[in-house]
């Protein structure tokens, strides 16, 4: 059985995917209209990273999961009500913006500071998890920069699976072109893993984990480290919604043969 690990999961929050989003000009640059009012969720890929961390922790007894999350703390508190039910973790909150327009290098700097300050941090046991991209910026840059800041050059992005071995080494499956996975073998921690969707279903709610988590989450939120990542060096010339309305021709009450003929001509045309 593998030795214990320190798994740090990094993630932000994003507007619930079903919300309609509209850009607006804020004092610091572009922002989302009514962002403070939009219901939020933990970023979907960070969410998967958290499940995978929980699963991995079970395979390496004595492992500890720390969730480092930057978001406005009031919003983060709401999101934690759901997250806390899933698995036991320690929250290290950063009170800062959740906007996709904020510079990822600044966000990475904030995350790195918090991770370096974790009590008893052991780099030889450290696995840094997060989403390979976010549903806000969608760039896949934060985790790489964070890894560089922590001096970690074993980095994997678009990860769908980790297979931990007894000696602490592990195989990682990363998404590559053509719907395939590249399989890499890493000697062990430290490493950075940016997760895609993984293979695990959402774990069921665990009220005991929820209660244990909330005892730590509320005081942590009160002491959340303030951060002001910015948009230095970047100038947004325009942010707009794409024109996406098409004139849809609706074909009803038509025999399947006729529809199939039209489609066949279209596809082969």
């Amino acid at each position, binding site marked *: 059985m593998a030795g214990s690990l320190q798994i740090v999961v990094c993630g932000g929050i*994003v507007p619930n*995917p*079903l919300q*309609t*989003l509209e850009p607006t000009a804020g004092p610091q640059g572009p922002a989302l209209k009514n962002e403070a009012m939009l219901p939020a969720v933990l970023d*979907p*890929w960070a969410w998967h990273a958290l499940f995978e961390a929980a699963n991995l922790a079970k395979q390496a007894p004595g492992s500890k999961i720390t969730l480092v999350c930057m978001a406005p703390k009031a919003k983060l508190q709401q999101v934690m009500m759901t997250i806390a039910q899933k698995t036991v973790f320690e929250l290290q909150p950063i009170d800062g913006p959740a906007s*996709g*327009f904020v510079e*990822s*290098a600044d966000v990475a700097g904030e995350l790195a500071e918090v991770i370096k300050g974790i009590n008893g941090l052991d780099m030889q046991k450290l696995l840094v998890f997060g989403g390979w991209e976010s*549903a*806000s910026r*969608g*760039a896949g*840059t*934060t985790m*790489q*920069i964070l890894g*560089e800041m922590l001096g970690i*050059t*074993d*980095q994997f992005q*678009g990860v769908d699976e980790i297979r931990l071995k007894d000696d602490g080494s592990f*195989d990682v499956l*990363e998404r*590559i*072109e*053509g719907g*395939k*996975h*590249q*399989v*890499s*073998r890493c000697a062990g921690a430290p490493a950075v893993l940016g997760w*895609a*969707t993984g293979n*695990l279903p959402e774990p069921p709610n665990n009220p005991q984990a929820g209660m244990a988590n909330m005892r730590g989450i509320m005081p942590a939120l009160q002491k959340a480290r303030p951060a002001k990542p910015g948009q230095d060096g*970047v*100038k*947004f*010339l325009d*942010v*707009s919604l*794409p024109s*996406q*309305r*098409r004139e*849809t*021709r*609706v*074909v009803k*009450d*038509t025999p*399947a043969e006729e*529809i*199939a003929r039209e*489609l*066949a001509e279209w*596809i082969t045309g």
Partner: protein
Amino acid sequence: MEKILVVLFTQEDGSLGRTAFEATGAALGLAKELDGASVTIGIAGTSIQEAANALAGSGAEKILGAEAAELAQPRYATDAAAAEALAKAAGATIIVAPGTSRWNRIAAGVAHRLGGRADTHATSLAVHEGAPTITRWYYRQRMVAKLSRTNRPWVVSLDPGAVPAWSGEPSQATVEKVALSMPETAARTEVIGVEAPEAGAQTIRPEAETLLVTGAGWTKKQADGQIHLKEAEAAIMDFLRQTKASLGSSKSLVDQEGEGQAVLPFLTHMNQIGQTGSTPRHAKGLATCCHGEEPHVVGWRFITERRAVNLDANCGWAQGKADVLYVADAFEVMKKLNDLLAEKAPATPES
């Protein structure tokens, strides 16, 4: 004056992929519009002469080469070291790269090492008031931004298929070699292989003309009150076989396995398009049995011609998003469509 560097990794056989020519074309186009800008091409791999020859006629000021046995494996530590060395050798202020999995793994890390910034998933490079600009999407393709930067070096990776590829005849290229020093820790990670999805059959084809999107309706009870998974599988796979289309799926359909519901065995999260899936680029898209929701629409963003087949004339997925919505039973339509495609197919000795 901008010094533009295109950094490319060779493929296993020493050649360059299509995206390499796209990045080269974008960089050359940008340089034309920027006063005094120059373009250098940097190629990394185990043996790069063939790749350099392919770009010899591009008009780039020079071609730099970084060769090392370690570059046979796409791996963060060695790839980042090679890209960093090429960027330093070129004194690059702008680094243009193809948005492949290999480059997107290192783009921001390399920018950080060089003291610059990275923007990935750019869909265009242009010039605005004398400054280079890019276009990229935010919030999962729900809003589009045009931006410029004063940060240098500026690493920009271009999404595959977003810009036209440069083309030209190969000729003998002169390559200026760049010395590489691989980190001692590079050997900690070793690429041991590539795995295809469990289904075996190839269903994801980024180069395909057509994308077939399957929705959860394929696994629901049909008019006879029964679920018809085998028929659904046959119809979908027959279509893919005949058209060589790529297969996409809604999130709800690929999630069903985890929820203990009926599933199509060949679908995985790799097929998923939309909010937490991909946003592929194809000339044509045909959606079947898909319903509603903005996240699904995201998956359509870069599909040029779109048609949908489902039973709901008011479906939010199709109305205003598809060019044509056929209100019909997808099982029936797909079966007949497959028959017609088989008739149209040229006869082969085997048939």
